[in-house]
């Protein structure tokens, strides 16, 4: 029988869309502004600078508009009795599963931008660097609860974590 992965049960906070948009703008805006400024200040090079500006701004705008919504549709998470399951990505997508018995540490991670939107991420680490799972864009309180819950669960499940 052919099988497929189902999406994890819970979506992330809708506010994460705004966070991802802000993060996209942090990357896209500086080069656009610099190019615009240069185009305004240096008339002889204006056609070239404007062409470059267009080359940066159009894909940048597309990225800023599409990426956050697409990410919101893909980024999902789920905790069961036995495992942590999370999906992430937008063009390149990943689904990760780690069993409770192999979890070593559970942390919250919060960048400055994430804090502005009251968001927080949860990082679940296993003995393998590639096995760690990040759930980004959760509500701050929800993330704290999740970390507590996971820490308690991981301790309750026997396992040597390696």
């Amino acid at each position: 029988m052919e099988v497929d992965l189902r999406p994890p049960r819970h979506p992330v906070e809708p506010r994460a869309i705004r966070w991802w948009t802000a993060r996209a703008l942090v990357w896209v805006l500086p080069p656009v502004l610099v190019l615009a400024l240069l185009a305004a200040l240096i008339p002889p090079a204006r056609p070239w600078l404007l062409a470059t500006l267009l080359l940066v701004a159009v894909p940048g705008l597309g990225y800023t508009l599409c990426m956050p919504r697409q990410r919101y549709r893909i980024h999902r998470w789920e905790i069961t009795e036995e495992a942590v399951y999370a999906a992430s990505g937008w063009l390149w997508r990943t689904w990760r599963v780690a069993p409770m018995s192999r979890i070593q540490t559970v942390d919250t991670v919060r960048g400055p931008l994430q804090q502005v939107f009251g968001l927080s991420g949860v990082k679940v680490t296993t003995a393998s660097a590639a096995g760690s799972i990040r759930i980004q864009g959760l509500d701050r309180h929800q993330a704290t609860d999740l970390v507590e819950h996971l820490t308690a669960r991981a301790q309750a499940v026997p396992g040597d974590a390696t």
Partner: protein
Amino acid sequence: MSRPEDAWERLDARTIAVGLSWLAGPSITAAVALATLGATPRTLIPLATLSLVFAGIAALGVLRYATTRYRITGERVEFRSGLVFRRDRSIPRDRVRTVDATAGPVHRLLGVTVVRVGVGEQDADLRLDAVSRARAARLRLLLGPRSGTPADGDAVTGRPAWIGYALLSGWTPLIGLAPFGALFRVLEIFGLEPAEVGLLREAWNAASRSPWPVVAGTALAVVLAVGFAGALLLHVEVWWRFRLTRETDGTYRIRRGLLGTRSLSLQDGRLRGVRLAEPLPLRWGGGARLSALVAGVNPDDSEERTSTALLPPAPRKEALRVAARVLGAPVLATRLRRHPRAALRLRLSRAVWTVALPAVPLAWLGIWASRLPDGLWLLAPVCLPVTLLLAADAYRGLGHGMSGDYLLTRHGAAGRRTTALRRDAVIGWTVGRSPAQRRRGLMTLTAATSAGTHRVRDVGVGQGLAFAEEAVPGLLAPFLVPAARPAATASSASSVSSVSSASSMSSVSSVSSASSALGHR
């Protein structure tokens, strides 16, 4: 020799001399330069810098020697170092996974050895740089409760005939170029123009008089000759007197090296599998490299990879024999399952794109830069057959399978590798799908283990998920659903998006259930 087990000990004092030794080369060069060129600013400035560095390294060495202490008690290995940033570390002896003893030529001359006590995570490893040879031998015994004597009938030794495989190393051209790079670097340090050196000027004059195919041919021959000689020397240095033994307590011990010796002891219980690597030139010669997958050692780290080698580059048959002996069954001989034809199409289209994309800028360059030939972009169609052949070969090599306690995966063309991994070593799955893989109903399955990550590339979605479930029953099962339709069709992209939008409709209710599962908000 009786000795209080728990007394704090220092490193060996000869360590300081080892630290200074690498300045010997530059010192000699500087002395020669001083003698031949006289005391000019050109020679005096490097000389002054050199003596400063000399003093600095000596001071650091003394400081390190004075501040580092270690001791071994019944249960723990303890280590203290640093003056300003003090570091105290203590490792339970039963967490020690590998003991690695390395001695470079200078170390051996002075009778000391660097010992690395591996515990798993890279930055938590203890490095004792350096202790006396006798001490290193005792530290090796840290591994087991009581290290046994080698069961000699079980030894694998390197054969002299295998040295031929050294010539099939992919590094040969680089090794051949290295001395020339070093020569120009030295000239640059002393501010000499290459044209000032008589020998080089003559070579340049001769080259500029001859037709270019002769020059190119000669240059290639010289580089390859130097490369082959270098590769042979390197092979002898690294693999001299290779010996793999299994001791009575189940510890594997690997010893090798001519000028610098290396000895690695690893516990049987830390073995997670083996990896058979067949890089292209070696594969043409029917050879392969075999290395152990050890908990806490990343097999993709180039330095660590050679340290866990179970064999020098050797005939494939011999590698399979040793693998079967280490794993207890001929696991690597298992027939692998093929991947869908879509994986071949993906590889072929990737091969076309990798040559087509650079062709555009090359064509531009040909038109714009008058010094470059116009037909530069023709390189692309010339390279195309090679990349297509590699793509087809990569598809032929793709496969995955199962044999007893082990799961197998194979991929790669230029660097083909077959991995046999203990199923109980898997500590998590990652499913990755690129846009191209989604169009073709493929995915890449990654097994995370404490001995590196291991991929099953471009496997069919249903096939790959079933394999993951078969290898580690129960882990993935709660997240699997019957596929809506056969996955290998191009329309699967639209069905995926409809599934995710449907589930985001129901997401409002699931948020509340999530928070109740977590207790409260």
